[in-house]
Structures are given as C-alpha cells and as structure tokens.
C-alpha cells in the first residue's frame, strides 16, 4: 500500500507570503477576529487535514527598535485561537506553540490539558525555546537565555509537564453519587519535582486528558534542536526547502531516537510548504510574479538582516549578498541561514533576490505550478524519505487555502496518498501515534 502523507495548515495573519496581506481578497482587519481562524480550521477539516498549526513570537516584529511598518502582524495567542475553533470543528488536530523559556510548566500543562479535554483529544504542543532575542526584554530579563541552556530548560520543562499529566491515573474520577466521592485520591499523585530550573509539587488540577499528553511537536533545526527533537518530538515542523537536506535531516533525527529509547517509526516530519497554484504553469508563475511585486523591498532586506543577525541596509541591493562579511560577523547562524548563504554563493544571488527568497516563503519550501505538478512534487518528497507530509502555508488566506483543499487534496486522495476520511476522533489517531501509557512520564511515581 502507498505510504500516505500527513497534512497540517499553518495559520498566519494575512498569509505566508509576507506580502500576502496586500492581496485584494484579504481584509486586513479580519485577522484579529474569530471568523478568520474558524474559516481556516473549517477548510482544514473539509480537506481532512491532520492539524491546524499556530505559532508564537512573544515580541512585536521590529527593525531598529520600531515596529516594522510594512510587515503583517503576529497571531493572536495560539491557545485562544485553537480553543475557539475547537467548537467549530470535530476532528482536525489543534497545535499551539508555547515557549519553554518564557513560561512555567504547571501553567502550560494545565493549558494543554484543558485544550485536550475541551477538544476531545485534539491538542498538540509545538515546543519552542523562542529564537528571537527581543522576547527577553518583555519578560523581565536583561538578555535571552543561551541556546544550550534553553534546551536544558526545555528538557526539564517537558518532563515536568508529562509528570503532571500522568499524575492523574486513568479512573481517578469515580463520581460516586451515593457515596459522595468524586475523586479516588489514591490515583492522584504529586510529582515533588526539584530540579535545575523548576520546583513543582503537583498534582495538576485536572484529570488526565483524552490523549494522555498533547502530541509533542518541535520546530528547531539546529544541532541542539535536533537532539531535543530526538528525545521528545512526535512531529517535527521543519523549515526545509531542499530535498537532499530534508532527507539528511529526517534520517539524522530518526538515527538519534533509539539512543533515547524511542521508536523512530513514530516520527512524522512535516516541512513547511508554500504552494502557488495555477490551472497552468504559466498562470502559477504569473501569480508568483504578482506576489513578489507586492513585496515591499524594505521587508525583504529587513527579514534578511534579522535572520542573518547582520545589517544589510547599507549594502547595494543589486550587488551580491556579502556572504564573506556576514560569515565574518561571527554570529551563530541557523541551518536555514547557512543554507541560504551557500545557495547565494553558488547561484550568485543579489541582496534583493535573497530578500525576496526569504520574504516570499520565510525560508520554507515553496512550489509554483499546477495542482498535478504539486502532487508529483509532494509524492517525490514522501517517496524519497524527505518527509512524512507537509505543513501547508497558503500564500494568503482564504483563497489559497481553499484552492489547495478543493483542487490538490482530491488528487492526493485519488492517488492513494492521503486519507479520504478521518479514522478516529483524536489527533493521535490521525497521526498514527500511540496514546502514552499513564506511567510513561519519567517523573511519575
């Protein structure tokens, strides 16, 4: 049987093409309202998607200390969005992004348990350590925590959450009306955790949720992120635009999993994918051109400078990307930046071209063509072991999401590459993931 793929949709205010919000069909004021997110979730469920994914930034988007004038907004709070759309949907998974660097484990364990209870077992947690330094200034800290330390904290954080979720065993709620006993207290456990970063007594104030734990999602691609993914991730949302690199990345995580006592077969790697579709290739290319023309040049240079932690504002925009100067700046580059610099050297890309490249898809993979061509592209990635599916990033909402759902999904289904219907009510069912045993958390007694 053909291996089937998993699909998520990454919600984003306006759209994933950074100029997507300028498209005439987008009503920019809508992005702060419930209906905007409800429509996306309903489209995802119509297309039998595995999940809806929402990100988190913890700081306004800025350039030199001022909010960037030409960029779109961040999302409103991910848990709020997904709790709201849980009521409008029945199957689609709900993956919220929350940082382990700027939160406390008890509050996060409670929020994901709540989302999982409310949605009947559809919650997922994209565990991030927060990449943007400026978040520190909004959380009573002088500077952002160093990366190795952030991942150490994340490891302890996640262990505590699992312990809290497991602290209520199955059957702890007895609700015996005659006896007047609601909880069997012998089945509720404190975790009494004292560690490097946290001390948490427990128990959680909520019983075990339908999925036991939310699905554990991870998105970092650095060496520390990769190791962390191997210890906790069930799903990886990866920024991979090159197939060979994606194959290597997926293999590298899977290779590390047995060392942490984990079965690599469960891992689902979902690279971001921004499709630009047309009924002919020519039409799709014209759409891409139209979008790139909407891109304000300042946005491209700003995004590039932010990603490279290097000020490109004074370099000639049509000159080559000054990779020598950038490398000499000695910043710790993310894999996606390293990859872009290699490509710029190889293809002789200008500052402006790199800006468009980064801004258009925000370093994720993109594809321009017809629905049939896109399905071939997706199948190739799947067959070659570059991924287990995709997190779809529509260039703008809602037209481009509807286009994918109504024109690409039926082809995927016809070719046996994607489900025709949901097989269970929970996100773990969609992803073929086991429900964690109540004793799986390392901290639970």
């Amino acid at each position, binding site marked *: 049987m053909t291996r089937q793929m998993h699909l998520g949709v990454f919600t984003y205010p306006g759209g994933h093409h950074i100029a997507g919000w300028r498209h005439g069909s987008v009503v920019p004021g809508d992005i702060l309202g419930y209906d905007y997110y409800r429509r996306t979730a309903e489209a995802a469920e119509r297309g039998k998607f595995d999940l809806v994914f929402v990100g988190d930034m*913890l700081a*306004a988007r800025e350039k030199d200390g001022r909010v960037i004038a030409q960029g779109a907004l961040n999302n409103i709070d991910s848990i709020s969005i997904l709790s709201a759309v849980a009521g409008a949907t029945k199957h689609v998974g709900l993956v919220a992004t929350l940082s382990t660097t700027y939160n406390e484990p008890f509050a996060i364990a409670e929020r994901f348990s709540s989302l999982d209870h409310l949605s009947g077992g559809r919650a997922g947690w994209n565990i991030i350590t927060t990449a943007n330094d*400026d978040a520190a*200034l*909004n959380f009573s800290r002088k500077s952002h925590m160093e990366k190795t330390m952030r991942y150490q904290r994340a490891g302890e954080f996640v262990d505590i959450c699992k312990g809290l979720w497991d602290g209520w065993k199955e059957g702890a709620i007895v609700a015996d009306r005659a006896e*007047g006993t609601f909880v069997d207290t012998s089945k509720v456990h404190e975790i009494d955790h004292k560690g490097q970063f946290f001390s948490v007594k427990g128990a959680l104030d909520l019983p075990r949720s339908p999925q036991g734990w939310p699905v554990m999602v991870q998105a970092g691609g650095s060496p520390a992120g990769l190791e962390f993914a191997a210890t906790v991730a069930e799903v990886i949302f990866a920024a991979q635009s090159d197939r060979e690199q994606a194959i290597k990345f997926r293999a590298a995580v899977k290779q590390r999993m047995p060392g942490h006592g984990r079965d690599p077969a469960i891992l689902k790697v979902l690279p971001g994918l921004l499709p630009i579709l047309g009924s002919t290739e020519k039409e799709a290319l014209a759409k891409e051109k139209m979008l790139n023309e909407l891109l304000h040049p300042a946005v491209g240079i700003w995004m590039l400078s932010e990603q490279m932690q290097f000020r490109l504002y004074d370099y000639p925009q049509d000159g080559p990307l000054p990779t020598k100067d950038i490398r000499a700046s000695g910043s710790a580059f993310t894999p996606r930046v390293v990859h872009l610099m290699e490509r710029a050297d190889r293809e002789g890309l200008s500052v402006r071209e790199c800006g468009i490249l980064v801004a258009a898809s925000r370093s994720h993979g993109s594809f321009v063509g017809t629905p049939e061509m896109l399905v071939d592209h997706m199948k190739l990635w799947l067959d070659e072991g570059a991924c287990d599916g995709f997190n779809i990033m529509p260039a703008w909402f809602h037209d481009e999401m509807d286009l994918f759902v109504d024109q690409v999904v039926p082809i995927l289904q016809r070719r046996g590459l994607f489900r025709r219907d949901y097989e269970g009510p929970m996100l773990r069912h969609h992803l073929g993931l086991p429900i964690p045993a109540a004793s799986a958390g390392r901290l639970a007694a």
Partner: protein
Amino acid sequence: MRGPLNVPRPVQGQPVIIHCGAPVTANSAEVVLTEPATMAEAKAGRAKWQALSPRARYVVRLEVILGETAAKRAAELDAMAADNRLRFVGTPEQLAAHLAEWHAAGVCDGFDILPAVMPIDLDLLADEVVPRLRARGLRPGGYAGRTLREHLALERPLSRFAA
C-alpha cells in the same frame, strides 16, 4: 518590560478589571465582586469601596436554589457538603422580589449568581427569573451593545499613548 505588545489594542481597549475581596489600589477596579453575609455587611462594604473606586460596579455573589422543591434540594445539598455563602432558597417569583428589594435599598449594582445545580437552577434563572426582572424594569430586554463594557456601561479606557 519593553513592549510593545505583539497584537494591536483589543476591542475594549483593556479587558474589564474585576476585583474579588480586598481593594488592591485606588481606582483599579471596574467591577467589585463581594461575598457579604448580610445586607448590612454589603452596604458597609460598598461604602468602603466607593471611597476607593467610585465608578466601580458593586456586585454581590449569591447562590440560588430555585423552584417548588428548592427547600428539599437545599437540605439534600447541605447533607453532602455545606458552605457558608449568601444563599437564596425559594421560587423564581420570590427571587425576583428579593433582588428588587436589594436593588431598591441601593446595596449593590447587580448580582453574580451561582446556580447551585447545573443546569436546573440556571435554566430556572434564565427562563423564570429574568422575565420577571424585565417586567419590573430591572433588566433590559436584550443586549444594547456588543462588548462587556457596553453591557456594564463602563467607559472604554483611554490609551496612555493617546495624546
């Protein structure tokens, strides 16, 4: 805290600020939720709050057990677990009269009603008590506004950056 926030100003400017129990700072509360034991205690509490947050809505928390069998149900509930809240036990007609009496005495601006058993007491409240309050002119016929501030007739706060 450097800011700015990563989303624009919310619809209401700021959420409605509600205080329970002891005052925190002057003028910080827009709604005060209290649990007085008697009408006299409520009156005294309100006077104290009015000095601190004169514009705040003063709301009294009241548990209700409603219907013809209310007294019997109250006894059953107390046999399982008793609490010391201010409580009303009686028919919807009696509750409407009771609330009107407190209102006329100027003790409070409203009530935070705790239905003792969901959904029995909540349904009776919505279906039997509210129409009687409307008939007495103590509740509007519907929502006049869209936001919580509008329901409570609270002003939308000015931004500190408005100038």
